[in-house]
């Protein structure tokens, strides 16, 4: 006779607890805040979906969401091709391989707030190396505390410097895993460098590049520390990305309700775009 018991639940329990404390419970507190209004002293008033409605209609949210997409779009457009180009240019064997790899990995090892502070000082018009050089030697007016365009350029250059290496390392890993036989086949066919890239290297790198784009999308979409330290969202609101705006609302204004609603929308967008992107990239393989 088959014995049945409920023992199996005990085996699921540890994971259940882990996921609960790690994701579900924190998430539910946010959900809790997002549908209520609080005035301190633990007094809550039911708000329903008011915060969500208000937020989705607010121009401030639209503006920071737009800036966020613009930032992420520019980052991906620069970092992915640049990363692939650098990976292609890196040596495949010999003395310079470890040297290149370490040089590439260095920016990623620096703490994020240090990166922000570094670039802040770096670009100061009066004492910063780059700032001084641009303003006083080349005579180009450059001040990211005054000029929104300068602030944007600085943030983007900083992120490119900080994170292109990730794409490089992933693409490089993809490249070195291609057996020599493929290159030989291409030479026998008389394929051009472009064909080798298009028909061998790119398809063979596709999987690592999918990961690279996903990681870079999520990271750049959720970026906070570096631009906060660098520009603090200014000048004005010109570099106030979604996360910076969120913190301003939550901690600056202590509007916990709207901030919680915004967090959930933020999370939903990140999840949705990542899922869409991953599905599109891997759809062809399944066929």
């Amino acid at each position, binding site marked *: 006779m088959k014995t049945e018991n409920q023992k199996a639940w005990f085996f699921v329990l540890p994971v259940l607890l882990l996921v609960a404390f790690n994701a579900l419970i924190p998430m539910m507190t946010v959900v809790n805040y997002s549908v209520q209004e609080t005035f301190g002293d633990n007094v809550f008033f039911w708000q329903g979906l008011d915060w969500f409605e208000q937020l989705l209609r607010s121009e401030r949210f639209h503006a920071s969401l737009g800036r966020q997409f613009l930032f992420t779009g520019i980052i991906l457009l620069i970092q992915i091709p640049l990363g692939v180009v650098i990976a292609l240019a890196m040596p495949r064997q010999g003395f310079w391989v470890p040297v290149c790899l370490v040089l590439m990995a260095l920016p990623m090892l620096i703490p994020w707030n240090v990166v922000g502070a570094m670039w802040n000082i770096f670009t100061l018009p009066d004492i910063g190396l780059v700032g001084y050089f641009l303003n006083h030697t080349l005579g180009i007016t450059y001040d990211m505390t005054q000029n929104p365009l300068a602030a944007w350029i600085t943030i983007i250059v900083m992120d490119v410097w900080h994170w292109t290496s990730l794409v490089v390392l992933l693409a490089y890993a993809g490249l070195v895993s291609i057996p020599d*036989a493929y290159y*030989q086949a291409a*030479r026998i*066919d*008389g394929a051009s460098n472009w064909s080798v890239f298009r028909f*061998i290297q790119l*398809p063979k790198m596709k999987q690592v590049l999918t990961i690279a784009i996903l990681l870079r999308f999520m990271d750049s979409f959720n970026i906070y520390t570096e631009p906060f330290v660098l520009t603090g969202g200014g000048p004005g609101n010109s570099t106030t990305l979604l996360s910076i705006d969120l913190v301003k609302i939550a901690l600056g204004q202590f509007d916990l309700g709207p901030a919680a609603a915004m967090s959930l929308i933020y999370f939903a967008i990140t999840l949705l775009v990542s899922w869409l992107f991953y599905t599109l990239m891997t759809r062809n393989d399944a066929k």
Partner: protein
Amino acid sequence: MALELRQITSRIGGITHVKPTNLVLQPGAFNVLLGATGAGKTSLIKVMAGLARATSGQILMNGQDVTKDSPQKRNISLVHQFFVNYPHMTVFDNIASPLRVAGMAKSEIQGRVEAAADVLRLRPMLKRRPHELSGGQQQRTALARAIAKESTAVFLDEPLANLDYKLREELRDQLPDLFAGRGAVVVYATSEPEEALMLGGYTALMDDGAVTQFGATAEIYRHPQNLTSARVFSQPPINAAEVTKQGRRARLANGVQWELSGKAADLRDGAYTVAIRPHHVSPVRMGGDQVELHGKVSVTELSGSESSAHFTLGDGSWVSLAPGVHPYKVGTDHAFYMDPSKCFYFAPDGALVA
């Protein structure tokens, strides 16, 4: 059309991969490169294909010097041990790729690809991609590409090594027919002596970067020019031992001796190396003039209908390969019998003398 190598060498980074090599390879029959892993087969193929620059010497195709020509200009095909196909292209596009690069008309490409696909029974797979194919089908795609291209030389570098036993047998049987009558020089590298014998044609034996013997496959199997060639072209390894010739008798270090006949009897007295193939050493006495050997059996194997036994003789290890199943007991002494008329005798410098 012939492929000719004149004093070809290849050194890369101070390491000699190919020692001075002279070969004339003809179309119409398989040219097998036989040698152990690291013997220089792939290096030699790379030089012939133009994938590696010859350090010195000349390569002639059809009488024309192609030593400095690119692989593309030499119009060759190469099929690897690994299944190399363009990953995101369909089988059709894969077979068509060299023709497209060459700028051939669409209708002709269509015809050639389909003809090659028919020969290799790939017709139903033309629209698939490599990762949707089995290993055998992937390799057939690579072979179809070589056939559709109508190259002047086709290099097959252990093309069956990564296929399972059944597929390997099947493709090996087909291979000579596939390339017969196409006017291409076909070079086939393998590390298995058995494969060379099955493919027939001509064989070049390779060892340590040098071709030790080249000729009709059956011919060089029967008459190895030197001890190295005999060793390369024997699986299991050929048995060899020091032997002293005195008068009309040959004597091993452990005292076993036998009467010499024919050419061997006329040799000058002295030290030689005797070698005999494992299947001429039997646990059963086959005739009166056989030499009896005693040795302790160390390893036995049963493969199909043959059984092999490794046994110690003097300070050497010998192998016997005999049809049927024999009741060897590992660790005990057994009697083996060798046929002295099947023995090769090599001079101290390795050359065959009788």
